[in-house]
């Protein structure tokens, strides 16, 4: 009898090892892609700088002042912002999809991003110049509060008796986007000309105009959110079975949900504070990652973070090279990419969503 079991166990182990190996390969590939995208982000741009001069500028040893300014002051902050914003949005998307057990949960689609933008705009228009000195801290914080409020409302509305229905999720998202849109419109109506200029940044999204002081605070928050959410892999796996089942597995469901919601709001809020509303990254990337490594959230989070960062960097490089000497808003590119993807997703799941 033992003779019969042993080969089976060995087969099982080797299947497990194969899968682990495959996942490690995917992580390595994603990390490599991100590294390439980051290098391209530092090397490519309107100003032609030879690779040697880019390295010299980064090392601080170059004698070309313009190259140094372009690489260190213009491209490096963009690449860092892109990495963090892409990773934060993608991981927040993956966490929301796990939390709501719904493939359509995306910070942009269900209104978390617009809630964050409304928070940021509130600081600019309502508090106005009085709050200007404390903006670097206040702005990400207000964006976080806006995102948190939106997430809590969605969670309350869409989840009933431990189950989330797609229809309620999307309807709640439509309502929240409409309310936030009304708030943004109202702010635009009452804002001064200068404030209006700031507002367009939040609604169109860009990696170019980030205030460095805001970026520091936001970067810290995004990093915390990405790392925090990555720790929730096991809990999210358990939640996939259903909330009651997760509780049976020893997960403190209510507490985990609260933590997850807070972290999603933190990541999305900080991403919006740093770069405005950039849609579809949180939707597209986790699906892509799931195709590559399966539904295990511990792997999903890591791969989503890497791919999200890489995707946003590539989109940003395209945004700054396509219409030279001008620049496209990056939101146009992510939406152009994400829109068709979203349609394909709907098409593939037509039967499941038609409840």
């Amino acid at each position, binding site marked *: 009898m033992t003779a019969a079991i042993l080969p089976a166990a060995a087969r099982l182990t080797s299947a497990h090892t194969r899968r682990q190996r495959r996942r490690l390969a995917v992580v390595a590939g994603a990390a490599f892609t991100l590294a390439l995208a980051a290098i391209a982000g530092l090397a490519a*741009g*309107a*100003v*032609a700088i030879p690779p040697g001069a880019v390295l010299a500028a980064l090392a601080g040893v170059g004698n070309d*002042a*313009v190259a140094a*300014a*372009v690489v260190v*002051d*213009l*491209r490096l902050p963009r690449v860092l912002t892109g990495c963090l914003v892409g990773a934060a949005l993608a991981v927040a998307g993956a966490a929301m999809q796990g939390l709501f057990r719904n493939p359509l949960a995306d910070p942009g689609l269900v209104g978390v991003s617009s809630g964050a933008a409304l928070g940021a705009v509130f600081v600019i228009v309502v508090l106005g110049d009085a709050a200007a000195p404390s903006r670097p801290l206040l702005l990400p914080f207000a964006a976080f509060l806006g995102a948190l409020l939106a997430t809590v409302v969605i969670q309350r509305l869409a989840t009933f008796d431990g189950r989330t229905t797609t229809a309620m999720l999307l309807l709640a998202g439509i309502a929240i986007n409409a309310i936030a849109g009304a708030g943004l419109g109202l702010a635009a*109506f009452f804002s001064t*000309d200068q404030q209006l*200029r*700031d507002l*367009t*940044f939040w609604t*169109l999204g*860009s990696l*170019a*105009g*980030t*205030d*460095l002081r805001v970026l520091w605070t936001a970067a810290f928050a995004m990093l915390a959110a990405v790392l925090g959410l990555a720790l929730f892999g096991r809990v999210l796996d358990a939640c996939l079975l259903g909330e009651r089942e997760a509780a049976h597995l020893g997960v403190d469901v209510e507490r985990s949900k609260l933590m997850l919601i807070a972290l999603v709001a933190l990541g999305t809020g900080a991403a919006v504070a740093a770069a405005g509303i950039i849609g579809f990254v949180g939707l597209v990337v986790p699906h892509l990652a799931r195709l590559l490594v399966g539904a295990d959230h511990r792997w999903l989070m890591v791969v989503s973070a890497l791919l999200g960062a890489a995707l946003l960097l590539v989109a940003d490089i395209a945004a*700054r090279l396509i*219409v*030279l*000497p*001008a*620049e496209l*808003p990056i939101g146009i590119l992510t939406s152009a990419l994400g829109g068709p993807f979203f349609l394909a997703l709907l098409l593939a799941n037509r039967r499941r969503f038609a409840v």
Partner: protein
Amino acid sequence: MCVRSRLTLLLAVAAFVWPAHAAERLVAIGGDVTEIVFELGAGDRLVAVDSTSRHPEAADALPDVGYLRRLAAEPIVALQPDLVIASAASGPPIVLDQLRGAGLEVVMISDGPNVSGVVTKIGEVGRALGLEREAATLGAAVREDVERVQVALGAIAGRPRVLFMLDIGRGAPLAGGLETSAASIIELAGGRNAIEGFSGYKPLSQEAAIAAMPDVVLVPTRTLDAFGGAAGLFARPELRASPAAAERRVVAMDSLLLLGFGPRPGEAVTTLAGALHPELVVAAP
């Protein structure tokens, strides 16, 4: 050899001897700034402009660095300008800082939607380009043009109520309230702004439009086209019963000329004043 060509020769020599003062590769941001650069005769030094710089035609043909409020730093750095001359409306501020950080000289030009604002603007552009004398001449000419219209208007009693409308492609058209460049040009051309209840450009409610009782409707040319000409404009419910509709008084002008407050306010004021007061006689310069 006449005095003028001798002067030109002298200037040419001066420009050759002191090249450090004159920026040779300019990027102009803002339709009004670009226009002033051209009026001062420095249009050939421009290497790029923003997307609002549509006049003169030569400006429209130059490379376009995007909308003045959403600039990006690196493409401008790549053009290697020795001077970026930017309207106060340019932004975002961080991008302007980045340009300075990359070693570019950035000169901001103030933004005042009235005649003294234009003269200040012309003076600032002239100083930035090392063309102070040309700027003084142009500024004086602008003042004089507008002044002549004011003198002529002094002889005329009526001040028609003028409603400025701007179609933005969706929702109600915007109307020009207090403190707008539209209000300012209407005032200068001997009209009264029909909107007194708000400042800035706001969506015009139909009832507010009826209450404004405009004698004349003023629109950018593109807006009139969008409304389907004068017939379409006066068929709109908010205008159908207005005094303007009764006499079919609509004035359409190029929006940059009308609102830009570039170097042509003389032309703008003269044209508009002539349309508002057909009996007006402006003395020849």
